[in-house]
């Protein structure tokens, strides 16, 4: 329902913040050779208020390294820097996405992002919630983004999107 909008928000965030660009349709065949996200380092951002849920971003190893390197302007970032950079990207994407799920400009609160525990099964934890899954193919790697959500009025969910 919101897939295209969330994809656009994510692409814009990567472009403006990390100087990365989405692959064109004709480039997607080459993406088969790119490293896929494996869930080893994920950032999770909780939100509540007019809509509740969490957003999880799972970047490929290549993308994670490039996010930090591009944001910091260094060749190779430390693990701590990679995690910090990923959390900031997650914060920006989530902050811009969550208003989609809140009706009538009611307020949502974004909680500070964190790195998910290795065994944290977010699909299981948030199984009762609606979800949106987005794959973002960029020139420097791939990111999977999942948003689990429910709004204050689930019956009206998305009708004005």
């Amino acid at each position, binding site marked *: 329902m919101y897939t295209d909008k969330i994809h656009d928000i994510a692409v814009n965030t990567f472009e403006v913040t990390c100087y990365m660009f989405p692959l064109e349709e004709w480039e997607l065949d080459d993406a088969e050779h790119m490293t896929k996200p494996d869930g080893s380092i994920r950032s999770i951002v909780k939100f509540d208020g007019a809509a509740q849920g969490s957003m999880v971003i799972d970047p490929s190893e290549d993308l994670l390294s490039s996010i930090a390197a591009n944001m910091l302007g260094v060749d190779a970032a430390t693990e701590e820097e990679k995690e910090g950079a990923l959390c900031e990207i997650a914060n920006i994407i989530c902050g811009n996405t*969550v208003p989609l799920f809140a009706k009538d400009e009611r307020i949502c609160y974004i909680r500070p992002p964190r790195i998910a525990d290795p065994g944290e099964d977010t699909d299981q934890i948030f199984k009762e919630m609606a979800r949106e899954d987005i794959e973002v193919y960029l020139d420097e790697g791939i990111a999977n983004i999942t948003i689990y959500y429910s709004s204050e009025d689930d019956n009206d969910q998305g009708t004005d999107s």
Partner: protein
Amino acid sequence: MENVKLTILVVDDCSVMRFVVQRTIKMCGFDQAKMIEANNGKEALKILETHTVDLIIADINMPVMGGIEMIEHLKETSATSNIPIITVSTESNQPRVDLITEMSTSFIHKPFSPELLRDKLLKLLEKKAINI
């Protein structure tokens, strides 16, 4: 104008973002600027007890003490009530954006380009909102 010597307090719980803001400021020509960092609003208030700054660039969503609470404290004290503040946030809820804009001197929505931050800084200097 960019060569003016500013002291800027950058308040953000993300060290990467503090670095990005500082790098952006330097890239925009304010390479003489002296930067001070704080992790959150509480830390910023502590720093301001002993330091004088020309400008504060602050995130809104921070643990311990967020940007809005920090600004409320700054406005209560005569020594800090007139320091210009650029708030940086992902906030998109218009009433909240209006509130933040009203409380601060300028508001920047994340993600932001280096040019946008530069324009905001130049505008504050032109308006002499920054006393240097």
